[in-house]
């Protein structure tokens, strides 16, 4: 038993994690008869919590409440992973990535996210507000405009060869590359 826990506690390589993530597609289809996707949960929360007369938010979100329960599951699973099945070791980034982070002035690479940006201790700093709040806003707006995120478009959509999903993934990388190469260096320097 201990050795099993030890084994699970190691970071999982891509060829273990990727296929299990891929299994979310048939598990959703067979067990739930629904397609895999997570960004819709933002829409359901919006429809449930913010009363409005907007057409886009007036639909039977309760019929999709399973999707919100799935998100609650993510909270539970990630909590258990971090609390009980983790070595606490820093992420094994490539040397090139570590060097680039240092160029950006990021010293603390011990956590999942840079603690000098993504923590409540830095909530008063414009940089933190920009990364968390503007970033979150763009994710919410962009996923609804595009009709899906990494799970709904990249994994679910490409799994059944949807051209709009392919176009959306090209967009994901257009935005990601612009941010990572052009805008982040300006913000962080």
């Amino acid at each position, binding site marked *: 038993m201990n050795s099993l826990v030890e084994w699970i506690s190691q970071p999982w390589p891509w060829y273990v994690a990727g296929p299990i993530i891929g299994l979310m597609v048939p598990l959703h289809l067979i067990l739930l008869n629904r397609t895999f996707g997570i960004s819709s949960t933002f829409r359901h929360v919006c429809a449930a919590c913010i009363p409005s007369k907007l057409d886009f938010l007036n639909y039977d979100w309760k019929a999709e409440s399973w999707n919100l329960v799935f998100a609650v599951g993510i909270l539970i699973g990630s909590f258990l992973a971090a609390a009980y099945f983790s070595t606490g070791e820093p992420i094994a*980034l490539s040397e090139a990535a570590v060097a680039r982070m240092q160029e950006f002035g990021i010293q603390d690479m011990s956590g999942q996210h840079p603690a000098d940006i*993504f923590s409540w201790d830095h909530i008063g700093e414009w940089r933190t507000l*920009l990364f968390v709040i503007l970033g979150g806003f*763009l994710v919410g707006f962009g996923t609804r405009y595009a009709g899906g995120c990494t799970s709904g478009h990249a994994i679910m959509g490409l799994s059944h060869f949807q051209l709009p999903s392919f176009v959306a993934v090209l967009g994901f990388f257009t935005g990601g590359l612009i941010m990572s190469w052009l805008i982040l260096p300006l913000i962080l320097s």
Partner: protein
Amino acid sequence: MKNTIALILGSLFGLILVKAEVLSWFRIQEMFAFQSFHMYGIIGSAIAVGALSVWLIRTFKVKSLEGNLIELNDKAPRYTSAYVGGTVFGLGWAMTGACPGPMYALIGSGTTIMVLAVVAGVLGVLTYAALRDKLPH
């Protein structure tokens, strides 16, 4: 029943997001800088398994747990919104280092400030809902 299954699947998904480091801002930057195969391997093998599963489900006309034939609707053929919206999402993805699934997983695993990213994301949906008629799709 549906909710129990969703809770279990979600928990498994949350566990993987942490264990495979998919939720890490560092991993996302590494991906966009093409400095590691890790994220590409994960997304690529996930799509391969997903595509094979869809093919098997269609070929053998697999039924859902409730006994219905599984239907897979095509995504709406709206390419402008897919590309422009996708680009907006990509900007946010590289900024927060997280797409929606990992945002929840970050909250669960201790980076609780991401609650604010989710709240901002919900306001992003509200803004889209208000502007929807004026945006090109």
